Structures are given as C-alpha cells and as structure tokens.
C-alpha cells in the first residue's frame, strides 16, 4: 500500500493467534498500538531506545524492539506478546520457570526476558550459561535478578525438553 499523504491507516495482522485490525497513526510504534488499541501492557516502553528489552515482541518469528518498530510494519505479520504464551490457565514452560526460580522482583522487565527466553530456546534448546548471557545481554533488569534469570532459562530449557 502506498500512502504518502495520509498519516493514518488500518492494519491487519495476527495477534497471539487471532486475526485483528487496528486504525493506527503511521507515527505509532507497535508497543503503543498494542497498548492503545488492544489494552495489552506486556510490551512496555522503558528506555525507548532499543537498549532494555522491556518492549520486546515477536514478529514473524523474530524478537524485535517494539519501541523502535513502526506499527505499520506489523501489517500482515504475526505478532506474539507475553499475553499469548499461556494456553488458557496453563502457563508456558518459560513462565513457569521464571515463577519457580523467583526470577524477578518488580516484574517490569519480565515479559521481555520471557519472550527472549522463548526465542533463545526455539533457536538453541540447550544453551550453556555463556550463550544465555550473550542472548539476553540486551535485556536489563533494574532489580538485578540476573542470577535467577539465568537459572530460570536453564529450568525452562529442561521443562521444554521433557514436555
């Protein structure tokens, strides 16, 4: 679609498995649209500069920085947020692992870490600690739950292998 005059448009995409549409401003990023149009707060803007990972969403199978990704680029894509991980009341392996290891205090960074954990384990089902640290180096936790987060990733890897 080419639209050089209008600063708004309607986009259609798959959100956590369901087809959806939204009327967006072209200057909105995907995190803003998830919050404003769908009431989803899992992807949240913190640094706004690509550094902290709080705004992480998975778009067409890849983790992206929501705060720097134009919502218009989600048109036609498949978007997964932390809200899409649980199956009804059943939490995903990554979610369970973060709870069981106590890998958070305030929880602000947790959706981003959980989505990145899912991505890492999709790519590499049995990462060692160095691989875990490297993959998650772009996610910041102000509460400093890093040791527990690394444990949570290992636990999630085990749960997924045994599932």
């Amino acid at each position, binding site marked *: 679609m080419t639209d050089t005059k209008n600063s708004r448009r309607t986009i259609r995409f798959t959100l956590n498995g369901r087809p959806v549409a939204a009327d967006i401003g072209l200057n909105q990023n995907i995190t803003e649209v998830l919050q404003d149009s769908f009431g989803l707060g899992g992807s949240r803007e913190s640094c706004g500069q690509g550094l902290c990972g709080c705004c992480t969403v998975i778009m067409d199978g890849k*983790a992206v920085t929501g705060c720097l990704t134009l919502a218009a680029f989600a048109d036609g894509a498949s978007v997964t947020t932390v809200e899409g991980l649980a199956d009804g009341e059943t939490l995903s392996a990554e979610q369970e692992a973060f709870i069981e290891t106590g890998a958070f205090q305030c929880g602000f960074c947790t959706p981003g870490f959980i989505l990145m954990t899912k991505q890492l384990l999709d790519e590499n089902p049995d990462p060692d600690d160095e691989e875990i640290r490297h993959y998650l180096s772009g996610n910041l936790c102000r509460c400093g739950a890093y040791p527990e987060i690394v444990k949570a990733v290992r636990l999630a890897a085990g749960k997924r292998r045994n599932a």
Partner: protein
Amino acid sequence: MKPFGLAEPASLKDAIAMIGDADSGVRPIAGGSALMLMMKPGILQPETLVSLRGIEPRYSSIETAGDGGLFIGAMTTLRRMELSADVARHAPVVTQALRRLSNVRVRNIATLGGHLAHGDPHLDLPPVLIALRAKVHIAGRDGERQIDVEDLFRSYLETSLDSGELITGVTVPAQGNRKSAYIKHTTRSADDWPALGLAVSFSLDGDVLRDVRAAIGAATDIPQRLKSVETALEGKRAADALQGAGDAAAAEAQVHSDARGSAAYKRELIRVFTGRVIRKAMESAAGGTI
C-alpha cells in the same frame, strides 16, 4: 513523533523515483532502528518515509561468487549476516564483529544498508569492511556505481550518496589466505556502541606482513583507513613493528573527547589496541577469527 506519510514501493526503481531530492522531506527507511532514534526526539522530522522492505528479494540476500567473494544485499538484516554460514566462511571477522553489535532484537531489524547509510562514526562494521576492501553498490536515477566503503563517509552523519541514491548492497572480495581481526572496545557494557573500533587485514609472506589494510572507527569523526599503520607494517615482521604501528596510529588519528572517553584516553587506547588487533589477526585462521 510528528505525523508522516509512508510509501511502500515494490521495486528498487520505484523507491528511487520516490525519494527524489534531498530536501524534499522524503526519507528512505529500512529497519528504522537508527531513524526512529532520531525521529523520536524530533532531530529528524520527515514528511514521508519510503520503506525499502518491499523491494526485490535480491536486496535481502547473501550471494557467494565462485572465488569466495560475497555480495550482501542492502536489506539483509545484521542478524541474517551474523547467522550466515557463507559470511562465517568467507569473512569470519564480520561474524565476530556482529556478535557484539548491539543486541539480538536490534540485529533482527537493522539492515546493512541502513547501517552504512546512517553515517554514524560509532558503528562497528565500517572499519571491518574497509579493512576487507569491501565496495558499496549504489543505485540512482542515472544508473549504478560502486565505491570503496571508505569513500562513503564524508562527515558526521553525512555520506557521499547523492540525492535520490540508495545503497543496494556490499561486495566483500575473496579474502584468500588474508588474516583479519577487529577489536571493539567499549567503555560501558560489552555490546555498547564502541568507544574505539580497530580493524586490520593483511597477507603473510613467511612472517612478513604484506598488503596491509588498517581502519579505525568510533574514536574519529568518520570511519577511515589508518595509512600510517599500513606503512609502518608493510614488509615487516609483526614482532618488530607492533610498537611503531601503535605510535603511528595514535599520532595519525584525530580523536575527540565524548561521553565514551577523553581524547587523551582514546589516543592511549589506539596505541595499545593497534598492537593487539595485529596480534589477534596473526593468531587467527586464514580469513579472520570468530
């Protein structure tokens, strides 16, 4: 961000026709990671963005030539380059540099073309590509041209692209038995923007260095060759030339103080890391090191 329009052409030709003149308020967007950082605080307020995401797939592909040369399309994401077996085989120093360039999410959206066209000196790939003697492919309304990567950068955030020109890709020539290395030095986290980036590439004739290429990024106004280092090393045994090369680099590079360190500190970094990057290349397998 101020409202703007968005065009999504399906071909490179249409994209070139749309970007038109430099001051028209029309700006190409690839991944958008660098643009968004400038648009959010209002440093840049384009009227229209022309997305390159829909142009022909060739511009997001990595192709190898029979002799080991590589063509990497401008729309190839940095993550695809990082995971490419062809890049790892033919230019492992590129793979190595990418692993510490920002984070996975940024590499998933950032493209090679946007990386180069951004013209920020604090980027990791320009010195690496300069050392590998890579060329930038450029297309405009008047046709195509190729330039050396080092000739792309004019001044801070300014490139030698003419209005209406787009980067279409980069070729990295076959490296044969050349050895290469890159050292990124950060003063905050390990994957921060570099305070200094140094890259070197050379052939070994016995233990004598030949056809040396050295390049610097981040500490200087623009990424550039360090010709005094190349001269100091050419035809010498590395062990005899490291000190002289470090001194030459520190004298040649015009460095500035900024948030990542004072000019004096950076000069000292350059002196020390010039020797280290040469040694790292000596220890690497042919082509580079991961």
